[in-house]
């Protein structure tokens, strides 16, 4: 693989749920260290796109990670995925440390226990997310920002080159959003590629390097200022859907 080859290449990606086409003909490529916002209205297919890239749903088209053509999930271990956080039971009896350690599962077989090296990596990732003192806490004891940082720590414990975050910033207050964006930026500068699905268009314009606009397919791909123009927004969100978008961007 040449040094300039994209870390993630997606070509002609399509997903169907029965007769319903959720996503069709999505193609893009991303380089190492890019911080990318994925925007689109509810039901546009952002989560479906992430799941398809991770191999969690059946899809057509091509996904290549780090130059490896992906046939199944085991070919995609260099990807980490953080699903929407409301999918998880925060009262589940698992500590923050145990959850982050679970990110190391890809490095061992099902019968093997975590090794000392795995625990060291998990502890280091927690410390990086400023959660070093929260190792033995329950998830419900964390604030929204801390919880997202814990999920990010788990993803980083996977030592993946590409991290997909599905609405990681939804419902997170402004200080926590700033903290998380700081973590994302630091990771991107370290060479990790991050794709973050978000509804916060102002944040997408302000804080990301690049923006993908999705609604059934990839509607626009480029610099946030270009993608979040009135013309593109109308295509992605529809004329009725752009009400409020202008206000958000004005903010």
């Amino acid at each position, binding site marked *: 693989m040449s040094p300039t080859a994209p870390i993630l290449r997606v070509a002609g990606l399509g997903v169907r749920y029965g007769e319903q086409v959720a996503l069709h003909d999505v193609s893009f490529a991303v380089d190492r260290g890019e911080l990318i916002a994925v925007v689109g209205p509810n039901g546009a297919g952002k989560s479906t796109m992430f799941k398809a890239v991770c191999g969690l749903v059946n899809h057509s088209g091509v996904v290549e990670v780090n130059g490896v053509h992906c046939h199944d999930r085991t070919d995609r271990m260099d990807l980490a995925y953080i699903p929407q956080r409301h999918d998880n039971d925060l009262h*589940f*009896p698992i500590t923050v440390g145990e959850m982050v350690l679970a990110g190391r599962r890809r490095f061992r077989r099902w019968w093997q226990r975590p090794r000392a090296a795995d625990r060291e990596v998990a502890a280091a990732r927690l410390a990086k997310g400023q959660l070093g003192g929260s190792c033995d806490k*329950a998830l419900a004891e964390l604030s929204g920002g801390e919880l997202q940082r814990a999920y990010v720590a788990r993803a980083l414990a996977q030592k993946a080159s590409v991290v997909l975050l599905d609405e990681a910033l939804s419902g997170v207050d402004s200080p926590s959003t700033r903290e998380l964006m700081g973590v994302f930026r630091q990771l991107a500068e370290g060479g990790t590629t991050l794709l973050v699905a978000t509804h916060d268009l102002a944040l997408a314009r302000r804080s990301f390097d690049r923006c993908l606009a999705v609604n059934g397919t990839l509607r626009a791909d480029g610099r946030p200022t270009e993608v979040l123009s009135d013309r593109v927004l109308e295509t992605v969100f529809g004329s009725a859907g752009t009400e409020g978008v202008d206000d958000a961007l004005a903010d």
Partner: protein
Amino acid sequence: MHWLTDPFQAEFMRRAFLAAIVVGAVAPVVGTWVVLRRMANLGDAMSHGTLAGVGLAYAAGIDVLFGAMGAGLVIAALLLLFSSNRRLGQETLIAVFGTAFFALGVVVISRLDTGAELTHFLFGRLLTVGWGDLWLNIGLGGGAVLVVLALFGELRLSTFDHVQAEQVGVHVELVQGILVVLLAAVTVISLRTVGTVMSVTMLVTPAATSRLFARTLARMTGWGVVLGVSEAVFGLILSYHLDAAPGATIGLVAAAVFAVTYLVTLPRRMPHHHRPLE
């Protein structure tokens, strides 16, 4: 002191005591996952549905434990087969198959002219447990515990976050299938002890009780076992003195412990004890 020791003078009571300990120890180990995965309805349907296998095996002269296991696996397979039907939810299918198999069991047993009584299978015959049954239960129960221990990490990850589990290489559906088989195994070892109807009690109630206060999975499982064994033994002693059905008495003791624990731990679970997410 005699109140505690008197019941165990007779050998059949000592066997019953051991059988109750096996169920009390094994059921919460599997039950922990049933509670966390909110599969109690499946446990209930399976415990009722195994009556069909029990009845058919009894009619055919086969050990009823094999019949129960077979029925449990058939119910699990049917649920898997129909799980792709989006019009009907899993809960609906569980109710349909559970009641259908239960009804089949009632019809088969009521047609038998061997003197077998439906209530024996529904509520167990703890005092008639033989050494053969006991060894079978120990083998099956020990196997179930070993499987849970071996798959502990996979079970934890796929229960907490099945999407992430799948993404890091856990075979989530296989883990779910194995858990259903374990569920059938617990139903089988509960059969003679507390009966088909009450088996879900030992599966769910001790684990649900420890869920109220345990912060980690290991503690939830450990406390579930402590509670399960204590409730089974105390329930058995109580049933001896009250001259009541052992299985039902054990079930009542477990429910009482749950109720007390719920009330005692209530202040801890009040909203002000959780920091707001934002």
